[in-house]
């Protein structure tokens, strides 16, 4: 595989070309192409079952598309493993929260630092010296994220006991701990009340500002999508039906038909 390039803001970070994904006879994605530019918030929307989550799964390597290729940071590939995607700076959150339920908030976010921790097994036998210094160094970074997401009070609470809104926030924190280049958010506002949604929007925009992260966002709340995103791609039945700025997409007749239905 070619070495990955550093991408400047405004340059193409990820390019999806003619990707098709089938499960037996079911066509989840058909010939979809779009790109993500560094520094933008790119929304992927569409009715239920349109293939949005499948698209994210293709990007971070859970699914291997039958056709098409993906260029990420200048390197083209058709297949990859999720942990390789992680090492290359792709992080994601899940539609239904996928936290480590038995662990505390702090430990969950610390897991996000796993890849950055290098000290060998030998030093871990003692938990003093190098291994401990490394832990403390990463703990500092994690505490910054905890500060940023305003979850100081639940630092030592097992995440299984937290309310849903906070769990979503911890999950975002865990993804941020990886210092990702590209952050895939799968319905980060699902099931939240207005206040929680506003908080989450603020965190997403702040993430972009503060960490310079590029964000791909799946969301059903159209108000959120139109306000947050720079460009929107619309899928329906696995086919791309529109691509452009929020205003362009809003005015697109195909999109209106997909969401509101057509009179026959």
């Amino acid at each position, binding site marked *: 595989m070619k070495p990955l390039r550093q991408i400047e803001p405004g340059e193409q970070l990820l390019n999806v070309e003619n990707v098709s994904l089938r499960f037996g006879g079911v066509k989840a994605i058909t010939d979809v192409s779009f790109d993500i530019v560094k520094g933008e918030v790119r929304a992927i929307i569409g009715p239920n079952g349109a293939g949005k989550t499948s698209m994210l799964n293709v990007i*971070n390597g*859970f699914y291997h598309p039958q056709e098409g290729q993906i260029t990420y940071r200048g390197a083209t590939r058709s297949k990859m*493993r*999720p*942990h390789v*995607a*992680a*090492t290359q700076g792709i*992080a*994601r959150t*899940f539609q239904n929260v*996928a*936290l*480590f*339920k*038995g*662990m505390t908030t702090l*430990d969950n976010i*610390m*897991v*996000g630092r*796993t*890849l950055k*921790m290098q*000290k060998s*097994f030998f030093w*871990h*036998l*003692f*938990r003093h010296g190098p*291994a*401990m210094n*490394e*832990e*403390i160094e990463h*703990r*500092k970074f994690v*505490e910054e994220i905890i500060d940023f997401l305003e979850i100081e009070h639940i630092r030592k609470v097992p995440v299984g006991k937290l309310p849903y809104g906070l769990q979503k926030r911890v999950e975002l924190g*865990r993804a941020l701990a*990886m210092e990702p280049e590209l952050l895939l958010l799968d319905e980060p506002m699902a099931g939240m009340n207005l206040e929680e949604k506003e908080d989450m929007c603020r965190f997403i925009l702040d993430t972009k500002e503060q960490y310079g992260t590029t964000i791909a966002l799946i969301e059903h709340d159209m108000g959120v999508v139109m306000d947050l995103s720079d460009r929107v791609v619309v899928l329906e039945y696995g086919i791309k039906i529109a691509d452009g700025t929020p205003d362009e997409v809003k005015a697109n007749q195909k999109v209106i038909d997909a969401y509101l239905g057509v009179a026959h």
Partner: protein
Amino acid sequence: MFYREAGQFKKTYAADMAVFPILQDRIGIAVILIVAAVVIPLTGSTFFISSVMIPFLVFSLAAMGLNIVTGYTGLISLGTGAFMGVGAFACYKLTTIFPNVNIIIWILASGIFSAAIGAAFGLPSLRIKGFYLAVATLAAQFFLEWCFVRVPWLYNYSASGAIQVPQRTLFDVAITGANATPTTRYLVLLGIVVLMTWVASNILHGRIGRTFMAVRDMDIAAELMGIRLLPAKLMAFALSSFYCGVAGAVMMFLWYGGGEAADAFNIRQSFNILFMVIIGGLGSLIGCFLGAALLNIVPIILKFGFPAIGIAIGSETAEHLNHLLVGGLIIFFLIVEPHGLARLWQITKQKLRTWPFPY
């Protein structure tokens, strides 16, 4: 009342990340260590040391091994007994081939052999989970048990097929074999258990422990964090088998003093240790000790406690009563707290912290 963390402020992350962040806990551990290392050897009777404390420590170590793979990494293993057997035989072979090397080194080194074998039998864990993995690990149990009987090289071609523990010394004091006193064996065992518990706690509180728990709680998300599942699971199996192997070696060398391995390391032993882990608390180091204590010490109290307070019961009745009561206790504890004794202990600590207020 006395168990309060109020006023104990942490000024560094290191202090906050300590295993025992509360002062009272540290005092408690110090007291337990002093009792175990000084009071018990000085005051405990031979019977108490050799029939209660030594088995308790051996089983705690084995339970710790199983807990690493089952409690922390979420992979059920029924091969514990066999992995213990590998440790025992490895130690036996090593000390008969190289008699001049100190036995403690061989006890610890024997864990490496069972770690290798454990990792090999852990390979299916990438593809299968839960009950199916339990069945796959049964293969290890049956295959290794077969080896223990059918490969005479392992027991040095002795006619009885048993391990004969030779006498080995440390600073000219016999620590294994017929001449070793129970107190000496107990102290050596205690040293090994304390050292290995400390190491386990270090590993499990750091990056590696978090990796294990991440794999247990949500393997898909763990993979996305950059954790490769196969190496993580194999490491859990290897580490777990290392502990089981050492437990098996100390069981043969410091407790049994020899015997037929196929009996000591059979499937019942595997289940016995699995029950200790479940009752003690999955994913908790203190739970290993609590579980081993419950399943070990209670039968002994029942067996010898009743005659001691004047209730004469025949040994057979005692045995039956034993099974009844231990079974009943297991059900009772699992209903009261399905997460094991460790969780009960945590709840107790939480109550003590807020006492006299309910929350």
